[in-house]
């Protein structure tokens, strides 16, 4: 297995270097100097800003500097849109809030979707199955933004107006930004993060349920299921032990491909609920042509993506004895 992993890693090094090169080239299609010119700017001002941003350096030198930051994991370049703050500091403070939404959302969505998919497969072709499929399709058909706007309006605003119960916050509060540990889990998270998480779960469930249902339905017609039934295994055991275990490969694949996106957060949820996460930072960086932030985010994301693919291969081997890493 180690040989396999080392070989895969070696293959991925040029891919990774290519990704970094690509993002640097793509970013430089637009000149960030113009967006930073002061009023009544002169040609000298343009040259000064170009030098200040380090864009007067040869492209190779800029690429080398990015590689140095990646290799040493020290994203110490100053953000262009947040003077006085390094890219590393921005990532460090943004990653926690993003994960506080994306990780629970992924866990809830996966557990619920797989459960609903199993139920749907259980009742395959009958009314419960059709209702679940219909609900999934309806859920998928509505825009994420609509869920956010309506969720925020009804669950956070109207519920308080009608019932007096102030369960969910409309927007994040600066007062709670320093709260951590158990207090965060018990008080801050339910009030400020649970509604965004639920919104995310509702949106993602439609897609995931349909996918997992298809997997379960396919598995339910396999020979081993027929054999289990012939041997008189109870239905719950067939579904939750035999079928679910064999359906793990597509489930792992789907979950694994989602993992790198956990750190990128959700810019829509973050913007509407005022959560200072990575999604919002990345959006701001792209809008303001903040090259150091975009480059560093891409570098980390690409590394995670490659790592996740490798991890998925390892998990395949762990859950399915037929898979060999060689």
């Amino acid at each position, binding site marked *: 297995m180690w040989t396999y992993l080392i070989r895969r890693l070696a293959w991925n090094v040029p891919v990774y270097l290519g990704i970094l090169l690509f993002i640097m080239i793509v970013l430089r299609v*637009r*000149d*960030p100097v*113009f967006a930073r*010119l*002061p*009023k*009544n*700017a*002169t*040609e000298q001002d*343009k040259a*000064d800003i170009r030098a*200040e941003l380090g864009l007067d350096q040869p492209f190779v030198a800029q690429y080398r500097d990015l590689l140095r930051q990646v290799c040493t994991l020290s994203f110490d370049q100053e953000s262009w*849109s*947040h*003077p*006085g*703050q390094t890219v590393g500091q921005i990532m460090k*403070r943004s*990653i*926690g*809030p993003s*994960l*506080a939404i994306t*990780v*629970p959302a992924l*866990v809830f969505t996966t557990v619920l979707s797989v459960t609903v998919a199993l139920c749907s497969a259980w009742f395959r072709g009958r009314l419960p199955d059709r209702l679940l499929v219909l609900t999934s399709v309806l859920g998928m058909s509505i825009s994420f933004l609509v869920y956010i*706007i309506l969720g*925020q*309006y009804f669950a956070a*605003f109207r519920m*308080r*107006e009608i019932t007096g119960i102030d369960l969910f916050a*409309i*927007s*994040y*509060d*600066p*007062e709670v*930004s*320093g*709260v*951590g*540990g*158990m207090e*965060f*889990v018990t008080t*801050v*998270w339910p009030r400020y993060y649970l509604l965004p998480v639920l919104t995310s779960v509702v949106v993602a469930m439609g897609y995931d349920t349909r996918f997992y249902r298809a997997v379960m339905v396919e598995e339910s017609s396999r020979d081993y299921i027929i054999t289990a039934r012939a041997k008189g295994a109870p239905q719950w055991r067939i579904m*939750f*032990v035999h079928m*679910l275990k064999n359906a793990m490969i597509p489930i792992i694949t789907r979950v694994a491909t989602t993992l790198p996106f956990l750190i990128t957060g959700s810019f829509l949820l973050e913007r*509407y609920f*005022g959560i*200072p996460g990575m999604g*919002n930072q990345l959006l*701001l960086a792209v809008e*303001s*042509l903040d090259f150091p932030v975009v480059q560093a985010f891409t570098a980390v994301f690409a590394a995670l993506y490659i790592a996740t693919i490798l991890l998925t291969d390892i998990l395949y081997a762990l859950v399915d004895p037929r898979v060999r890493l060689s």
Partner: protein
Amino acid sequence: MPHRAMLYAGCFVCLLLCAGCSSQEAPDASGSPAAAAAAAGRSDTSQTARVSDEEFRAAWEQRRASGNLKTARFPMRSDGPASLDPVRGSTMYENICASQILETLLQYKYFKRPFELEPLLLAEMPVCSDDGLTWRFRLRPDIRFHDDPCFPDGRGRTVTAADVFYSWKRLADTDTGSKSWWLLNGMIAGFDEFRETQNQAPQFDYDAEVPGLKIISDLEFEVTLTRPNQSFLWKLAMFQTAVVPREAVEKYGDQFGLRPVGTGPWILREGDWVQDVGIRFTRNPGYREVYFPTEFMPEDVEAGLTGGQGKRLPILDEIQVVFFKEDQPMWLQFRSGKLDYTQVPAENFRQAFNRRTGRLKREFRDQGMTGHAVPLLDFIFRAFNMDDPLLGGRSDKSRYLRQAICLALDWDEQNDAFYNGMNVVYDGVIPPGLPGHPEGGRSEHSYRGRDLERARKLLAKAGYPEGHGLPTIDYYTSRGGNGKEQTEMLTRQLSDLGITVKAHLLDFSQLIQKVNNRSAQFFSFAWASDYPDGENNLAIFYGPNASPGSNHFNYSNPEYDALYEQIVAMPPGEERTAIYERMQAILMEDCPYAGSMARTRYYIVTPQLKNFKPVETFSNWFKYLDVER
């Protein structure tokens, strides 16, 4: 399976845990508030009972001990400021936040309209020599910087003339990331040469002398201008020229923008600025003895805004500003009673205001809330690139073509469709409320549409009857907001004249690049006045300011330029206003732009917030506000 579930649950809890981790100064030597008011240049004669430093501090300590601090919560519809270093700041949001902590030599009178300046750090308004070149300044003797570890004993020292010059020299230093050199560029004798020399030297020498900056004593100094310039005083009220202590800049370096030290009524404590979330301003316990203004407009008296009279500033103890990246959460938060005022988002305007009368709806009035319309000093326009071979130049043919395009555009329709009719459509380039703005917004020289018949005639005179033979015009605009829909309207309006437009929707950075490169043929842009004087708007048509300067039209007219150079030195008055009108007439005839429109921003204020007169031209008004809950 149970083991896996436990593993997932364990990881989930761990991640949640990780996510969570993520002097009082002696009063003015002159003593009484009346004397202080006189020293501050106020023209009123009202008497205010003095609140001594001891009484002022004791009241605050008492509120703090009892947990009854006077706190207000305000919204800011943005991601917040990027830096509070005055030389790096340029946006309205940086202005709002920096203006609470840092102070300038002059400030706007809070209640006075039209806007007027008064001393802030100065003891009196600066005095100008007869030739209009030399200004003499005297600082108040009781100004101290905030207490901060950057000072030897942690106690803020008295502000001196050297601090003022040091702060201005930072604008000239390119290593500070200064974005606002344009404020003083070409203004002060020898300052441009100083900037050039020092930026080329290995080390920027802040102690090097500038011929036009002369220290007379610790509190007195003189500034000699290169030529008489009336905008100089306005610039001394802009936050970029705020006075900062050298000790703090040198101690905190790049971090100064994150923990600014100034002289203002509010301080920023460690951890009080949560990036992208909000910022909290805490009362500066060592703020000098100053009182609520006593000069009001009649409408202020009627609106009950005089209640702060006699109160020492700042009145509140803390102000929490929450950043909102979207309109809906800000609006809902206000409706939930968690904000003391709000701007009204465009999509909620009809919910709050009667569109026809502009009056706040009963639902809100019944709760004691008040509605306010604040006209902005805006100049929203479509610009012609005067360097363009088709649309530019000063030939009759190109002028007729531009005039025809102007007449085909319907600004009222645009205002109704996209702004609920809330904006002000006007002729000329000077926004409403400023001298030079045409009466009723209408000028006889204007080619503002819509007048299709006249437009057709001019198009034919330009050699393109019904648009025949006219090449497609490239129009550039920002893709943000409703840029796409507005472009569709413009395209349709011009197609009525037979003019074909190819629209290019760009990110703002791309648009500004295109404009600065002089390669945008016809484009949409806007100008927000830096100070309330029409000269600021007229400057964007001044020839030497051509792109990448602020004259994005690349307009050049020797007669106009000569008039501009004349008005720069002239004090406000009828003679100057007449020249403003003459200059606008030239612009309206030459049509380097099509316009104009100014935004109006609507506010709703809760009854518990006192003394609030919404304004967008200046930002240091937090100190006047009070809350009664």
